[in-house]
């Protein structure tokens, strides 16, 4: 199976509210509310860490979920956000010029 790298889009505004994240798309002002699991993936989406590692090292220990199930859920989540243009997906590491840096989080 091919590796999946995820990065936050630059064209969004994201603010953390407790354990959750509110994200507003600059493209169409659509609002997204991320639950704690999705928030963890969002914050880890640096373009350099493969999704499998995010799930293995951050999601599974934090939420005590089975790795295969967590990965399936994570893949579905990142595909949905990518369809709205607020996450970038690639089979290779994503350069920071295309993605949001950690500075604003």
């Amino acid at each position, binding site marked *: 199976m091919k590796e999946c790298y995820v990065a936050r889009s*630059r*064209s*969004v*505004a994201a*603010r953390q*509210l*407790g354990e*959750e994240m*509110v994200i*507003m*798309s*600059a*493209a*169409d*002002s659509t*609002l997204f*509310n991320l639950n704690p699991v999705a928030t963890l993936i969002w914050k880890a989406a640096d373009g350099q860490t493969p999704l499998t590692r995010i799930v293995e090292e951050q999601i599974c220990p934090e939420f005590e979920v089975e790795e295969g199930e967590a990965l399936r859920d994570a893949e579905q989540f990142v595909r949905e956000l990518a369809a709205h243009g607020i996450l970038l997906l690639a089979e290779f590491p994503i350069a920071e010029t295309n993605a949001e840096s950690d500075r*604003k989080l």
Partner: protein
Amino acid sequence: MSAGVSIQDAAAECPLVSIGVTVEIGGVPIELQTSDRVFREIIEERYAGFVNPCAVPACRFEIELTAKQVPSDEDVSVIRRGSTWCLQRGDFRAEWDLERKQGWIRQCANPYSIDSVLRITHSLLLAMEGGFQMHASSAIRNGRAFLFAGVSGAGKTTTVRLAPHDAVVLTDEISYVRKTENGYRAYGTPFAGELARPGANASAPVQRVCLLKQSQENRVRPVKQAEAIRALMRHVLFFAQDDELVERVLDAVMHFASNVEVVEMEFTPDRRAWEMVR
């Protein structure tokens, strides 16, 4: 300025008045210039309570009317190129230079198009200073403003239609919120919903935002800050495809929610609901 002031009357009062019509909504004057006498009269009538010939415009728009009638159901595009904002929808095109404070609008003689240009321009100006537009009705009671937000059918128009005589209805459709030194202020707008009546040209400090929910009983429930932010964001009107302003709007709503009371208001659609609004 009282409602129904004509350009000629104003010119007599204010020697520096221009040939345009200055419409001041939310304390933001915008001058609309048109050489078409009939369209100017339409503008004066449409924004009658908000015409202020003595105000210094924050920007001026020269309106060029086109004969072609185009539907307005297309998505709006609002982008910035340098210091110029470019606004476009099926029924209008407009540009506004922030530095020169001037712009132009090309549209047919449809007043809904000029409504949209004004709302978009105001949304940008409000966002730049920490305010926003909200899809909410609002009214002033006892010197304080109350906003009523909700999805379509939640009761925005019903609420202000039931307002008692001592309340001043600011709008049944779109409220303007501006940041002040001491908090936030809500302003009336001429943009009407089902009430089909423009709001009052008045403003007051925001006391509370009520998230409406029609019910069999009248009850107010405090809303936690995170829930309030999510709810408010759903009702904020913002049109620009602009990273910087989107950040500002999100920050503005978060700051607003931490400084203004937000409640869920279950209400019966009758006058008793206003016992909760004081």
